[in-house]
């Protein structure tokens, strides 16, 4: 299977051959930053387009079809539109916090994005506590949303931010516990090791019943965490105009929009990495020929294919279920998902201790 570290090592040697070590390191850092930005923005634009098309198909419409073939350039046009919109200065806002909020939201989502293993050897941040780090940085985004709502000095924003905060911290628990369940099974926190460990079967199949329960809980909690689908009450447009980003205009708003789609990608990416084997091809122990054929498909296609399926499922939720009320939302988390999750954790420990997994 093709290993992307071949390319990175080749670039490293090439740079070190023509310039001193310190300069080469700086150039490499710049290249990493640019690649990250490119991936980040291309994925965001692609997701915005896909969201519109999928939503249109669910509602028997055509969706965007004017700008470019099949409307693929629609989101690019939208980005340009957002750049040339005026950024309105609001009188009563807390200027410093109002300006700070988009930075926090974007920093949290870029840092979490950098942790994902896109293909074999293609991962920016690979800490030995990787998955723990990922949970930590992605939860910083909540601070940005709370700041945005509080600094706006607008009643809708305040209510939207408070709802969003309550919802995101509640479902954070379920995400943390279901990830913990999978960590018990895999026995490592490092993301690259997590993926390597799934060479003889994805964790979802290895852990059978408890892994399946954790997967379902993760999907529900992940959907809530991104403020999407049936859990989009922080920005329920019929009651709160636009929730916490009501007062943001132009590119300022664009950052929240960007981070929202990237968070969708990150949730789907983590689901893929933890449960569906990341970039690892589908391997069945004992079927040598089958495994060989699967290895011919490049790892990057495996990762993006699985993430695409997960994203489609999350979008499917959005257009299938009606929006929950806040009391239903909190009841679902605290009275159902959390106790089930704790029981499931114990079940997984029993499975691991008594070697009942595959």
């Amino acid at each position, binding site marked *: 299977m093709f290993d992307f570290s071949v390319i990175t090592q080749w670039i490293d040697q090439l740079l070190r051959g023509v310039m001193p070590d310190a300069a080469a390191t700086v150039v490499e850092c710049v290249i990493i930053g640019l690649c990250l930005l490119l991936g980040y923005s291309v994925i965001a634009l692609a997701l915005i387009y896909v969201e519109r098309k999928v939503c249109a198909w669910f509602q028997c419409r055509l969706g965007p079809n004017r700008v470019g073939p099949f409307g693929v350039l629609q989101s690019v046009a939208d980005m340009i539109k957002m750049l040339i919109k005026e950024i*309105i200065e609001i009188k009563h806002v807390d200027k410093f916090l109002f300006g700070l909020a988009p930075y926090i939201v974007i920093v949290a989502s870029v840092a979490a994005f950098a942790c994902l293993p896109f293909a074999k050897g293609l991962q920016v941040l690979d800490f030995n506590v990787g998955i723990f780090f990922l949970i930590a940085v992605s939860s910083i985004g909540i601070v940005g949303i709370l700041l945005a709502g509080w600094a706006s000095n607008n*009643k809708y924003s*305040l209510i939207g931010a408070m709802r969003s905060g309550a919802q995101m911290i509640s479902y954070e628990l379920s995400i943390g516990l279901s990830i913990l369940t999978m*960590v*018990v099974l895999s026995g490592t*926190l490092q993301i690259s090791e997590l993926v390597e460990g799934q060479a003889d079967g994805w964790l979802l199949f290895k852990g059978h019943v408890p892994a399946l329960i954790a997967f379902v809980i993760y999907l529900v909690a992940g959907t809530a965490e991104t403020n999407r689908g049936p859990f989009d009450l922080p920005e329920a447009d019929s009651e709160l105009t636009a929730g916490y980003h009501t*007062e943001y205009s132009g590119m300022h708003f664009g950052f929240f929009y960007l981070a929202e789609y990237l968070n969708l990608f990150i949730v789907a990416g983590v689901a893929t990495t933890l449960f569906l084997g990341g970039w690892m091809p589908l391997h069945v122990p004992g079927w040598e020929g089958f495994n060989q054929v699967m290895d011919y498909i490049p790892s990057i296609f495996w990762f993006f294919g699985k993430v695409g399926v997960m994203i489609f499922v999350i979008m499917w939720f959005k257009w299938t279920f009606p929006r929950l009320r806040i009391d239903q939302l*909190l009841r679902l988390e605290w*009275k159902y998902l959390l106790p089930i999750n704790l029981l499931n954790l*114990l079940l997984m420990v029993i499975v691991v201790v008594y070697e009942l997994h595959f």
Partner: protein
Amino acid sequence: MNLMLFVVVLITAVALVVAALGIARLISPRTFNRQKGEAYECGIPTRGTSWMQFKVGYYLFAILFLMFDVETVLLFPWALTVRDLGAAGLISISFFIVILVLGLAYAWKKGALEWK
């Protein structure tokens, strides 16, 4: 190495915001209108500030969240060694989880999980 990469990622994220805002400020139009600076609420002028008291229910859930989130942090190191600990690890962690569940049951009984 990893720490340096993390700093690179942070700088990249900040650079993205700074660059996009800079471009937007350069090419976007600017007009002044007194009405534009008003809060976007419902059309009539806003009365008073929005920095005021809000529902205490949100605070209650934040406190509960704190309890369980600290628990998750404590469980992570244990999760890594659970294979080596074997049945002993299972029993000792059951006590920990049972105590936590008692806390949740208490909050449930007291009605802290109801949205009123």
